[in-house]
């Protein structure tokens, strides 16, 4: 007896992102096995991410090139933004590496730089001679009280006031050098030479001074030039101090990785534990001042830049993935705060396999509702859609490739929100915008479903036709529709997605219809299928080179076979 044809509609497939934790069999099709260079678009569909587009087109860096230089690679390593006297600035650190015609290394130059006023160039900010100029690669740039301070390991903080050259903070009038907590004498360099700094509650909070990551030096109120002087009121206006956290680590020993302010709490992230200090307002040392409010054990921060504040919560990178501090504390249950629960094993392995974990960073792009966990070492990222969690509890996750930037920065000013990317490919600052990758590069959006039983896990499927409904703004590109059975995509069909002048409810030739407005067309592609199997895999691979692309729906017309 002939079997009936069944039409099965997969609406907004994969919109819950990748899920490699739950059993793929009989899994909801809203999860994806693969979603590369994808995001969840504003309509809840899986679609191509935006491009890493050109922002700056030139550099203004002064150095003497090597005699035999043939090529250079310019990298922007760290960047931050803030306001000085009402003016927004983006400040970054840059290196230029020179190579000869054989590709051999010749020299490297390090710079402090800023985004030009018109946003088109990276301009050098002159600095005094640095003892460890290479430390600029991992600088911590902080804006504090109308000043920009650059903290690096082994160098004193650089101070930039928005004009002219940067100077050493220690050269400022009235500078009070820090007193070492243990010896009660001046620190080795008389400088706050740590590379972990936070501006919060009217003070600078710095650790890593002289390589010590168990003491936090905090400045006097609104005064970055005053540090702990070891006295008892010799200078009454100096409310700077030191917090020795070595006695508070729940596991007995740890080191501070970063310090974050949140919700009237100073959160001190260790590598494997977290300390939460309450009441950081006012003078921390005063009666009723700062105190240890709570601690979290077996959760820590893997990298200084692996933590972001969303305003409502603090998200950070632990060895097990991205965590929510708020939910962790509130619920006192570690798994609940696991934002990458859907890819936990994968991301854990990736973190573990990253040789230099300082290359891992986390950045939150609120205007895109994205949390990007960047692995700059291999230019990949896990990206979390932050509007709503998936049905499993974890956030919707996708993966990105071709992430040729070391850090990302989202900031808002009167002109709106913007995401800047610190290019490691001589592009200066990139921006996350549009769908035209810098340099005309094409990036590929890839989506694959988990094996689909289509509700009948003991029945063979004989797909006859697939209908993909895509949404794009119409720029010419190519796409490849893929399918298979079991665990591999054996079959595919490439189509050319033409830029068309769309019309409402019009019917095009060759069975391809476009619906929608002129700037966002619904494109329907029918693919005649072949093959059979119990578990059906479907996929899409699309080259993105200027047009957006989202997957609205997949219709499967299949013949169900015997059990």
């Amino acid at each position, binding site marked *: 007896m002939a079997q009936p044809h069944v039409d099965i509609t997969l609406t907004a497939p994969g919109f819950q992102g990748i899920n490699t934790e739950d059993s793929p069999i009989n899994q909801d099709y809203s999860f994806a096995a693969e979603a590369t260079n994808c995001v969840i678009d504003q309509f809840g569909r899986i679609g191509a991410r935006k491009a890493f587009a050109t922002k700056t087109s030139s550099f203004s860096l002064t150095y003497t090139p090597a005699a035999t230089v043939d090529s250079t690679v310019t990298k922007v390593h760290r960047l931050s933004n803030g306001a000085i006297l009402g003016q927004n600035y983006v400040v970054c650190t840059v290196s230029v590496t020179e190579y000869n015609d054989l590709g051999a290394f010749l020299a490297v130059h390090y710079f402090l730089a800023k985004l030009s006023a018109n946003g088109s160039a990276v301009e050098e900010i002159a600095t005094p001679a640095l003892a460890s100029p290479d430390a600029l690669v991992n600088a911590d740039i902080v804006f504090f009280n109308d000043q920009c301070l650059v903290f690096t390991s082994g160098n004193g903080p650089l101070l930039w006031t928005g004009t002219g050259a940067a100077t050493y903070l220690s050269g400022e009038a009235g500078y009070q050098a820090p007193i070492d907590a243990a010896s009660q004498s001046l620190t080795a360099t008389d400088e706050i030479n740590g590379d972990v700094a936070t501006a919060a509650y009217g003070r600078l909070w710095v650790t890593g001074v002289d390589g010590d990551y168990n003491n936090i030096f905090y400045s006097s109120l609104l005064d970055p030039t005053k540090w702990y002087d070891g006295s008892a*009121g010799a200078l009454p206006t100096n*409310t*700077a101090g030191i*917090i*020795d956290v070595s006695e508070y680590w729940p596991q007995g020993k740890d080191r501070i990785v970063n310090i974050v302010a949140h919700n009237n709490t100073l959160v001190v992230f260790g590598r494997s534990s977290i300390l939460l*200090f309450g009441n950081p307002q006012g*003078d921390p*040392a005063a009666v009723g*001042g700062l105190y240890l409010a709570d601690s979290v054990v077996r959760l820590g921060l893997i990298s200084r830049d692996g933590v972001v504040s969303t305003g409502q919560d603090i998200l950070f990178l632990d060895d097990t993935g991205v965590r929510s501090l708020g939910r962790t504390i509130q619920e006192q249950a570690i798994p609940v705060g696991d934002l990458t629960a859907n890819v936990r094993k994968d991301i854990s392995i990736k973190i573990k396999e990253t040789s230099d974990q300082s290359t891992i960073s986390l950045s939150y792009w609120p205007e895109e509702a994205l949390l990007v966990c960047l692995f700059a070492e291999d230019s990949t990222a896990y990206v979390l859609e932050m509007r709503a969690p998936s049905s499993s509890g974890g956030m919707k996750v996708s993966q990105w490739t071709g992430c040729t930037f070391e850090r990302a920065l989202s900031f808002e000013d009167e002109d709106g929100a913007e995401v800047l990317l610190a290019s490691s490919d001589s592009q200066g600052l990139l921006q996350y915008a549009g769908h035209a990758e810098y340099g005309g590069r094409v990036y590929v959006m890839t989506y694959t479903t988990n094996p689909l039983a289509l509700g009948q896990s003991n029945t063979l499927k004989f797909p006859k036709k697939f209908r993909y409904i895509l949404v794009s703004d119409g720029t010419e590109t190519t796409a490849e529709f893929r399918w298979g059975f079991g665990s591999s995509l054996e079959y595919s069909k490439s189509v050319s997605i033409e830029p068309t002048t769309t019309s409402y409810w019009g019917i095009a030739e060759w069975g391809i219809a476009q619906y929608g407005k002129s700037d966002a067309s619904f494109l329907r592609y029918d693919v005649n299928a072949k093959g059979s199997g119990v578990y059906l895999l479907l996929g899409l691979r699309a080259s993105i080179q200027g047009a957006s692309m989202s997957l609205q729906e997949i219709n499967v017309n299949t013949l169900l076979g015997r059990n």
Partner: protein
Amino acid sequence: MGWLDIISGVGSAAAGYGIAEDMRGVGQDAANQMGELAGQLTNDTAFKGYGVTTGLGTSTVNADGSMNVGVGPDAGQAAYANSMQGNAMNNLGMSNQMAQMGGFNPAYMQAMGVMQGGMQGLGAQQNNSFAASQQAMQNAMQGTAGREQDIYNRMMGMQQPGLDRAKTAQQANEYAMGRSGIRGSAFGGTGEDAAMAKAQFDAQNSASVAAMGQAQTEMMNQAGMAGQFGQMGGQMAGLQNQFGTSMGVLGQGQAQLGQGAAGLMSQNAQISGGLGNQAYGNQFLPMQQQLNALQVGGTHGASMAQTGQLSGAGYGAQLGLGGIQTQANMEKAASELYGNVFGSGMNALAGASGNLKANTGVGWLDKLVSYL
């Protein structure tokens, strides 16, 4: 004048010369005779010695003046003198012994011992009192800072357990509140640390002020004690003075006793010495008597003998000298006569030569010399 005058002149001279020579020989003979006379007178007037013989012995004075008394000291008197001298020396020794023995009066010694013991005791007490007074005075006069520090340390030492407990409680509270690792420039630590430090500082302040007051009180006490000890030392000194006076009286009496005994023995020694000296003089009485006898013999007998000798010799010498003087006078007259003769002859010769020269221009002597 002619040649004959000349020849006669020469002859006169030759004869005068021979007479002078004869006169010289007469003088020589007179001198020789006077020498012989002198030798004879010497023998005649020489001392021949004499002797005196008494019952005590015979004493002689020899021709050369040496004398032999012939009598020595009296041996018995000499022995007696030695004996008396020995007695005198013994008495003197006994006088010294008596004087010395004045100090060995047992009662005196016992009294002196007791009093010296008392003096030593009083001296020790006086020294102690004065030393204590000195010490107290020094204590009273020295600065109070050191004592204040000692008192302060003791006060703080008494408070320390309480402070430690409070500090421990405060540290525990800091740990409990999670604030133990915080240090602020305004406090040197936490505000709680500063409060604790202030409380401790206040306690230290109070203890410091109390220590200063206590130290001053103690200094006043020390000054009072210095006065009291000084008075005690003065009393001891007064008692010592009394003891010293008593000891002086005792010593004086004892010395008088010694001096009396020594004086008696000294008198004995003087008597013995006088007897010795008298005996010593007596031993030479025989010799003195013999010398007196010798002097009588010498004064009378010997002097008379010597006077006789000298008178005889004087007469002989006067006679010898008279003879010789007469001869010499005669010889002198003859010689003067011969001298006159020869002088006349020579004048004649000189007159002849002078005339020749006046006539010829050349004297005869000049011619005689030219012939030669």
